[in-house]
């Protein structure tokens, strides 16, 4: 009996020790044989949309810098913003820029570093029409407002004279979970439709005038596959990877543009001309001949004034790498790389990151 107690106690102690070792010093103190710079451990949380890319970045960056450990958890953009404000993480990811009142709560200025751009594709299930559906902004808004309810509506027919639109009711499908994708899409609809702006507005979750909700991109696309006559929106990357039909959307220049990486980067370049200094900008309805109008940046949020010298340095170096070498991984994973002029603006921000006035990158 007594022996068994000893064994159990032994296991408990061993377990506690293991936990203590695992959660122990965050590594800065341990010198590393590689390089010569001490090891650094960075934690980031936030948006799930760029998670696959950030994982790839972290993996590749670790090959180059084995003493820098980065951990990114996709808990959602709002979670990212909350955590960076509380100072519990080194950086955060967010699909939407922070609001002014949120920025005012920060202990020091928070920079918005765009990492890549993404777009929202309009996908549909129309028997007999597997590609080439054209939509104008007003028609798109009226479909999602519930004002256009039939595929044979004359406005849809006149936009698509070459297509044989079926005689079906339109079933609108939207995201049920709060999401950056919804934020970009509703931001776009608010810009092109005053009725939408007034009645529904922009947000990660909104009160939809019509339609049914699916959870996540897979929920939306699964629902659309089930219901002939349905239309909905998903991330462009998701639509491309799964070969979903993608509607052409009329942009500000009047051209019908397919959601592609090129058209998304074009939107980013088009918006860069009017980019504010803090880089909090919406890419929806961007000017430019080839711009796809439903697009947005995803951001990395970092403090300008770092509180730990080594971690701040590692962070600045990682950001610099992500904006340059890291961009090559974007395209293969269906994220649109940043246009050059935006990279230049972001570089200036990264140079300003400092510890007690001492900058890391000159």
């Amino acid at each position, binding site marked *: 009996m007594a022996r068994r107690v000893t064994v159990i106690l032994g296991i408990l102690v061993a377990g506690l020790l293991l936990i203590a070792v695992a959660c122990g010093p965050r590594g800065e103190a341990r010198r590393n044989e590689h390089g010569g710079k001490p090891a650094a451990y960075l934690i980031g949380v936030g948006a799930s949309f760029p998670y696959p890319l950030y994982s790839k970045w972290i993996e590749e960056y670790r090959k180059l810098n084995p003493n820098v450990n980065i951990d990114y958890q996709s*808990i*959602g*953009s*709002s*979670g990212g913003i909350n955590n960076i404000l509380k100072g519990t993480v080194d950086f955060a990811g967010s699909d939407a820029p922070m609001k002014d009142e949120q920025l005012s709560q920060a202990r020091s200025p928070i920079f918005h570093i765009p990492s890549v751009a993404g777009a929202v594709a309009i996908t549909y299930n129309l028997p007999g029409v597997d590609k080439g559906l054209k939509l104008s902004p007003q028609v798109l808004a009226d479909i999602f407002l519930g004002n256009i309810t039939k595929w044979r509506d004359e406005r849809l027919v006149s936009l698509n004279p070459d297509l044989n639109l079926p005689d079906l*009711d339109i*079933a609108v499908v939207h995201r*049920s*979970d*709060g*999401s*950056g994708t919804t934020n970009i899409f509703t931001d776009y609809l608010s810009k092109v439709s005053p009725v939408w702006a007034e009645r*529904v*507005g*922009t*947000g*990660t*979750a*909104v*009160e*939809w005038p019509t*339609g*049914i*909700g*699916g*959870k996540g991109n897979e*929920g939306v696309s*699964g*629902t659309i596959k*089930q*219901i002939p006559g349905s239309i909905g929106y998903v991330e462009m990357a998701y639509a491309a990877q799964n070969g979903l039909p993608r509607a052409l959307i009329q942009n500000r220049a009047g051209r019908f543009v397919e959601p592609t990486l090129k058209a998304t980067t074009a939107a980013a370049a088009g918006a860069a001309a009017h980019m504010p200094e803090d880089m909090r900008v919406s890419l929806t309805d961007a000017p430019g001949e080839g711009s796809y109008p439903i697009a947005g940046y995803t951001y990395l949020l970092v403090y300008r004034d770092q509180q730990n010298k080594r971690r701040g340095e590692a962070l600045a170096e990682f950001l610099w790498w992500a904006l340059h070498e890291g961009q090559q991984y974007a395209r293969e994973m269906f994220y649109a790389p940043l246009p050059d002029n935006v990279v230049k603006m972001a570089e200036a921000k990264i140079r300003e990151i400092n510890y007690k006035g001492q900058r890391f990158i000159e």
Partner: protein
Amino acid sequence: MVGKAGRGKIKDTLFAGISGLAALSIVFIIIVMLYELIEGAGPALARFGWDFLTGTRWDPVHEKFGAWPLIYGTLVSSFIALCLAVPLSLGIAIYLAELAPSWLRDPLAFLVELLAAIPSVVYGLWGLFVLVPWLRTSVQPFLGNTLGFLPLFQGPPLGMGMLAAGLVLAIMILPIITSLSREVLLAVPLSQREAMLALGATRWEAIRMAVLPYGRSGIIGAIILGLGRALGETMAVTMVIGNRPQVSPSLFHPGQTIASVIANEFTEGFNELHLSALLASALLLFVITLLVNVLARLLVWRMNKVTQGVSRE
């Protein structure tokens, strides 16, 4: 020097203390949870008051939160599930406990318990890709054509909606109710059945008049546990219910439950008030589950009293 008996006493006291602490921790956990929920829900409840219960709009952008469609969706989907699952589960349980040949009992019971082990997200996917298309192409058109005069079965057959959610929930709570009821029935003393049969009762009469009344409170307990799971089920429901906070008499229409709105919106909470409204609905779910359990206890208690009274006469 402590004698052997004395040491035994110390061990007893120690054991009683430790298990007492374990029991107390439940009370502590519930109090902490309630406190957190009430604190988090405070801003929303202060802003909307009773309108939070009766309001029908859920609009994070314009900061209008009314949970009535969520309460409605939670209760209706669980009610559909109970209506479908209870008769079926009791049938299975009675067959397994009383009628099945012995070589069939264990494999069947094993299959039922296997159903309980399937993760809810798998039920959700199955619902979305198998059940929903079947509902849309076969069941809903049929119901609409034959019973379409009832408000329950009106509207376009989308497949997704309250009916799909109720069906998935029914399948999910089936194994809980079945296996618990089976245990209860097996616990009924053999003498009860034998007495009944000795009086000349048929097998059905013995089950109806001796076995079921004896196990009644246990069966109700099983049903309540099933209901508890249905009320709180999140993932599977979210994938098939259509996620539209509305109150509609038609089972073909999409709806929304408290658990699914929390799962959907909590990670990307829009602002403080939105998060607070979500916590307030969590508190609501807590209260609903509590009420259901208390009601069930009262029911069981009352029934036991009645049957005891009968047997004493």
